[in-house]
């Protein structure tokens, strides 16, 4: 029984969905951790990335690379639309705008009037063919007890490769003078301005870059599931991504990746554990059906509170650095 739980947890922790979330988290870390931008609508970037990829392929019969480019372009456009009116204002305005915009996008894609393009609530399918055609893995079962299918393995390796590559890029960017300007904006944007830095431009670059990472997250997500539906993009996705960033260590290069793996390991392990306990009859009814999800969220919430109390800097963060924040 413990084995089953452990394998379930591991399967989720390294699976393609986790890789997609890792991409969201890496982008969010660039926004929130390094630039101090409060983007509460990262899921919106995930959505436009996903639909940007799926619509040209599934609806208009374009090849996958066209979908990839539209996905990126859609993320850039969303960042420009959100950033232009808000990045000159206080941080809160971006937060309000992004969370609202992400929900508006979800409702728009659900709407029956957009059914021809987005497939409405039913969403779209059959856009991932090209992606799996280039998979180097012949059909079969992989990774021993984890029992990954060839497709799942390919999506996983692709997703994590992109996530790790982008994390490396962020790491190097943050060690460049460009990164130094981002940090200074996080610390005090008026100081950055007084030294001749075009704060608006840098914030916009950060928003676009992190948003495109979120868009990639959406693409990996929908490619791995081979379907896209509006309700995959609920607001809590953003907050899960925030949780992963903070869990791993805000403003650290590897933190978002570590946080993502840990988050999925915990939440899936707990779910699987509770289910196993219910099945063995120790906890009848209490955690049956829907309640499994709810009860795991309660436990995860409790664990997060404990983390904030005992290790507020996350797994990899620097406690000294955090203490300086209290001015």
């Amino acid at each position: 029984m413990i084995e089953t739980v452990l394998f379930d947890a591991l399967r989720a922790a390294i699976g393609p969905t986790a890789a997609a979330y890792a991409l969201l988290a890496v982008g969010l870390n660039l926004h929130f951790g390094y630039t101090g931008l409060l983007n509460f609508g990262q899921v919106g970037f995930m959505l436009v990335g996903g639909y940007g990829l799926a619509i040209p392929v599934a609806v208009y019969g374009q090849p996958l690379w066209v979908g990839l480019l539209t996905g990126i372009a859609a993320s850039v456009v969303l960042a420009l639309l959100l950033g232009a009116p808000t990045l000159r204002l206080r941080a809160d305005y971006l937060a309000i705008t992004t969370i609202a915009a992400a929900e508006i996008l979800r409702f728009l894609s659900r709407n029956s009037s957009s059914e021809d393009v987005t497939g409405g609530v039913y969403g779209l399918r059959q856009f991932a063919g090209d992606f799996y055609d280039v998979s180097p893995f012949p059909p079969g079962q992989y990774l021993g007890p984890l029992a990954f299918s060839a497709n799942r393995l390919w999506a996983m390796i692709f997703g994590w490769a992109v996530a790790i590559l982008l994390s490396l890029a962020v790491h190097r960017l943050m060690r460049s003078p460009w990164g130094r300007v981002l940090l200074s904006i996080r610390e005090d944007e008026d100081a950055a301005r007084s030294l001749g830095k075009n704060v608006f431009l840098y914030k916009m670059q950060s928003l676009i870059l992190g948003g495109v990472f979120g868009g990639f997250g959406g693409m990996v997500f929908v490619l791995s599931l081979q379907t896209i539906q509006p309700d995959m993009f609920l607001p809590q996705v953003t907050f899960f991504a925030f949780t992963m960033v903070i869990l791993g260590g805000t403003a650290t290069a590897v933190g978002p990746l570590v946080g993502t793996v840990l988050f999925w390991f915990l939440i899936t392990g707990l779910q699987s554990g509770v289910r196993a306990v219910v099945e063995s009859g120790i906890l009848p009814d209490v955690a049956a059906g829907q309640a499994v999800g709810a009860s795991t969220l309660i436990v995860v919430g409790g664990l997060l509170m404990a983390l904030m109390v005992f290790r507020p800097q996350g797994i990899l963060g620097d406690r000294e650095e955090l203490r300086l924040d209290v001015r």
Partner: protein
Amino acid sequence: MSADAPSAAAGRPIGPLAGVAREPGVAKPDPVLVVDGVRRSFGGVRAVDVAHLEIQRGLITGLIGPNGAGKTTLFNLLTGFDTPDAGTWTFDGESLGDASAYAVARRGMVRTFQLTKALSRMTVLENLMLGGAGQTGERLSLALVSRAWRAEEEALRQRAEELLVRFKLDHMRDQFAGTLSGGQRKLLEMARALMVEPSLVMLDEPMAGVNPALTQSLLGHVKDLRDREGRTVVFVEHDMDVVFDISDWVVCLAEGRVIAEGPPEAIGSDEAVIDAYLGASHGRDRPPRRRPPHERGAA
């Protein structure tokens, strides 16, 4: 300005301003900053209403005035951190009226803040290196190509290290700026502003909250800006001893207007200035040292 001139700074008008009339808005022989009709109101309060003001190049100009006189607001307006209701001003002959704060700094007019803005979670060295103007590596397109900016970065580091030594912060170079004391933060901010290579430095209360020992060294640094590097300095200060010690010229604001200007000693006995500082100082040869309570003992 020759290097052996600082002794003349002890309150006497020096060189170019010797023959200039001591009246508000007077024209100077070589102004670097010319302000015309700048007004800014907050609600019904007219915070700044400067008809005409010229700042002489290469000298230290002190900006004084009671609390609420509009000194910091004027700073904010001139450096692009606030927008005036009306008015124009030129810096080095070019209009700066609608330039944003970063553009003002790039033109060579750099300010510091009354409440110091140390970038807490960056090291002291990083704070300084940020100041470097026109860095190639600050462009996103080149940030990943470290070959393109490695040499520039190294030169910048050297310049920063020299400034750290000069400002006696070199032992803190790898510490987070958030760990610095109040006085050290003032030093850091001044050093960081110098990294931009400004021709005009605007210091907003550089001595506030600094202990007396450090005040002397800060004063020395301000004089150095003029004497060693030929920069123009405008500073806001409440401590009259400081103002008299280092200013070549003093401008007094009250209720947003320039009510008097002249060499420090003339200002100290100016009727309008004494009135502005409330009657308490009548009969003395200069306004009393007025330190608002929040500055006292803050060092």
